[in-house]
């Protein structure tokens, strides 16, 4: 199912990308089943708290500098806002901004009264309040489980306020229960931008490349590299302005730091405005970065410049890289991240000479919006070694059970709230919170050194593991990690 920009709602990943949250097997089997179209989601008879798509949608949009968010739901649906604010403070900090401000998110504070009688009026009031307080260039309205179930006509309510305020007031449909894939929330956010914010190009700018990322700590590195190619990066969506986003259609290409994140926006821009989306491995590790930059070079006709740059880099890092590989050779590692990061980091850790003994991904997209399987998955599947992998939406019982049995030398994770559990098992743990970790040649070296440090002194994890008890029964640790995975379960059920 392709991206459909004529609808008000993005189609969720389960339907669009055949995405799943339950699977156990190997990377080759996963790729085979994805290609043949027979990959099925497995349900679970036991599950633990995960995340919902609303968090991704409102968190991402809240970092647009001159927009505001209205979150239509009970106050708890804005519980993540304190977190969005912290990363927003961080983003301002690394940009050296003097007058840091808070994120601009208003919650409609839905009460029992609204649940019974409808919440359209409090929604309109909140939109007006957000407008008066922030004078934003656009307001994005994120929905909730409650607003969805009670059937508030959000679109109609917002049309009225939009006419009144004279700025885009855009619904972002991200009811928590509608998708089990929290990354569907990124799509919901991008859908809102593609359908309501990005404008028809006034001109074409052959030097400009849209770079979809999170907080863009690697801005300077990317700008320097792109400079060698005669290109100028335009980072987003965090810290973009509405007027910058309006012109995203004018770029020569779009590229993303993360395949899971950027696919909807990249392919949407290609589909609607003809801006080519670079489908490549992620720029993490040498092979990934080479592929990322080469595919960009091919897209914008800068192949020679890319090759010259890469050749120079290879020579620069050869000695240090060899030393890192020598130290990491054969170390056993488990990876747990979102699908694109997981499958890209597995490659880079294997390239270090490490032995990836298990790969968790927090969901898996059987295909991406360009039509094919994720390139990072195919790349791994073509290698000689077949790596055991599973798909779980951060199901802690599976992860802890497996880690306890496998006892790796290292756990490399992404997404908050999971790495701590590997640490509690006494396993040296690295959490990749910065999307520019292991970016390019220098980043790969830095990351290698970070692993070496993690392996050098594990006293915190070791001491902790000896003093705490895990919240699981002995019975559970005697079971196989994927006991509760119900294979060949029913297809995804949907109404609407």
């Amino acid at each position, binding site marked *: 199912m392709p991206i459909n920009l004529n609808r008000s709602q993005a189609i969720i990943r389960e339907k669009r990308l055949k995405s799943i949250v339950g699977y156990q097997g190997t990377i080759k089997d996963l790729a085979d089943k994805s290609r043949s179209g027979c990959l099925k989601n497995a349900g679970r008879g036991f*599950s633990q708290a995960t995340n*919902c798509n609303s968090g991704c949608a409102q968190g991402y949009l809240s970092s647009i500098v001159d927009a505001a968010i209205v979150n239509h739901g009970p106050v708890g649906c804005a519980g993540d*806002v304190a977190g969005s604010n912290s990363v927003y403070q961080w983003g301002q900090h690394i940009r050296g901004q003097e007058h840091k401000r808070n994120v601009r998110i208003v919650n409609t504070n839905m009460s029992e009264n609204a649940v019974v009688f409808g919440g359209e009026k409090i929604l309109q009031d909140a939109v007006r309040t957000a407008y008066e307080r922030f004078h934003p260039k656009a307001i994005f309205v994120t929905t909730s489980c*409650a607003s969805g179930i009670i059937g508030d006509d959000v679109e109609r309510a917002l049309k009225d306020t939009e006419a009144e305020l004279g700025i885009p007031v855009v619904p972002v449909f991200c009811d928590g229960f509608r998708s089990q894939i929290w990354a569907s929330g990124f799509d919901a956010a991008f859908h809102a931008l593609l359908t309501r914010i990005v404008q028809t190009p006034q001109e074409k700018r052959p030097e400009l490349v849209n770079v979809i990322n999170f907080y863009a700590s690697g801005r300077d590195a990317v700008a320097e590299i792109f400079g060698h190619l005669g290109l100028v990066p335009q980072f987003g969506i965090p810290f973009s302005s509405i007027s910058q986003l309006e012109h995203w259609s004018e770029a020569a290409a779009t590229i993303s730091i993360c395949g899971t994140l950027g696919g909807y926006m990249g392919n949407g821009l290609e589909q609607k405005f003809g801006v080519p989306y670079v489908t490549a491995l992620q720029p993490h590790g040498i092979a990934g970065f080479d592929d990322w930059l080469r595919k960009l070079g091919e897209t914008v006709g800068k192949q020679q410049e890319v090759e010259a740059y890469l050749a120079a880099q290879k020579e620069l890092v050869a000695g240090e890289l060899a030393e890192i590989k020598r130290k990491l050779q054969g170390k056993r590692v488990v990876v747990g991240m979102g699908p694109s990061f997981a499958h890209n980091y597995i490659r880079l850790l294997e390239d270090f000479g490490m032995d990836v003994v298990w790969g968790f991904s927090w969901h898996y997209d059987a295909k991406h919006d360009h039509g094919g399987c994720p390139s990072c998955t195919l790349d791994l599947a073509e290698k000689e070694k077949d790596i055991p992998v599973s798909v779980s939406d951060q199901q*802690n*019982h599976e992860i802890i059970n497996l880690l306890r049995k496998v006892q790796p030398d290292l756990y490399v994770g992404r997404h908050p709230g999971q790495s701590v559990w590997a640490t509690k098992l006494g396993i040296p743990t690295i959490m990749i919170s910065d999307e520019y970790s292991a970016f390019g040649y220098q980043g790969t070296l830095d990351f290698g050194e970070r692993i070496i440090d993690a392996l050098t002194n594990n006293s915190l994890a070791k001491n902790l593991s000896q003093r705490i008890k895990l919240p699981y029964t002995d019975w559970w640790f005697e079971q196989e990690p994927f006991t509760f995975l119900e294979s060949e379960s029913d297809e995804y059920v949907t*109404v609407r």
Partner: protein
Amino acid sequence: MSQCVEQIRHVCALGAFESVLAIKRAVPIVHSGPGCVSKLMTTLGTQNGHQGSGYVGGHAIPCTNASENEVVFGGTDQLRKVIANTFNVMDGDLFVVLTGCTSDIIGDDIGEVARKFKKSGKPIVYVETGGFKGSNLIGHELVLDAIIEQYLEPQPQIEPGLVNLWSVVPYQNTFWTGDIEQLSKLLAAIGLKPNTIFGPDSSIEAVRDIPKAQFNLVVSPWAGLRAAEHLQERFCTPFLHYPVLPIGPTETSTFLRTVGDFAGIDRSIVEKVIQREENRYYYYLERAADSLLETRLLPRRFSTVGDSLYTLGISRFLTNDLGLIPEKQFITEDTPPKHQANVAAEFTKYTNEIVAETVFSNDGGYVEEELRKLKLRSRPLILGSSWERAVARDLNAYQLSISAPIANQLVLSKSYVGYDGALHLTEDIYSVVLNDFM
């Protein structure tokens, strides 16, 4: 005025799963959408003093992660499955089923599901905490109601001196663990035996012992009162309501005298403790007085922004003991209307007939507007959440975080309660002042 809220300082009723986590080896089972726990934990935990998962928090919490399927066809089958397997997988002593909006709006009968497990001998209670039912402070009361009603049994004997403490709301009040430790120490000092229901010394035995207590002690403007009333109703346990969190010598000494009198403790024992603690407090304060008084850097006026528990306790200390003057005090926990008048009245009882104006609002955006309207003659002190850091910079105010969410501080065992806590608060306030220019 619009009912919307910005810069949120509490979450919804379901956030009370954190109160369950505060009881050692108690396990919440959450029947809600997939993102509720993660979101609520952000405001109450990770961005609030950096309180993390602990024993069975965060992604370890059993949850049905309700999808469209459960919303359309009902979620009780999946809930039954998750509960049944929780008993096999999770190692706990008490299991509390809490619901979110999805379940409460579609009307899943979770009571029926839970009661079947209870009949088979499982330690399980259930409570409906759909987000639209109110704040997590209300949710906290609902959880306590459920435990009192469904789990506690009458005990054959009352244990003299045993006292249940109902005060800080776990996780919501960032310093809750340290506060419980300090309050317990104060009670123990006058010869009482605090029954520790929440925090590092808690246990399921303590929960079971709740009906054994000589009395219930509510140290809070209103949160916890309902539990004490409920316990009086069910087990005839008397209760004492002390509305102020005791911070500093004036309030703490009054607190100890009041509790001592209620418990029938010999006044001389209480007075001895008070004298010892006050002497210690003033030993330190005497040494600090040179700086506090001579440098004239200590702000003259202050505003607090936070739960009434803290705004009241801290404003009493700063006014009665430290000689500061209260500007507007902002109470942000969505105080139930029926309690507002009583809470506001407490802000009129300062030394020197000083009275503070109170503003009840859980809308941080409104609070910010009001703070910007204050007529300030010198650099004020704003004690609030980390949301206030931005407005404090704009107003050239000193800022110290004392209420949720506190993202800019790591809080472990710290507490501002009692004599010792007041010293720490003085240290922290003056350090903010010094770090501002040093």
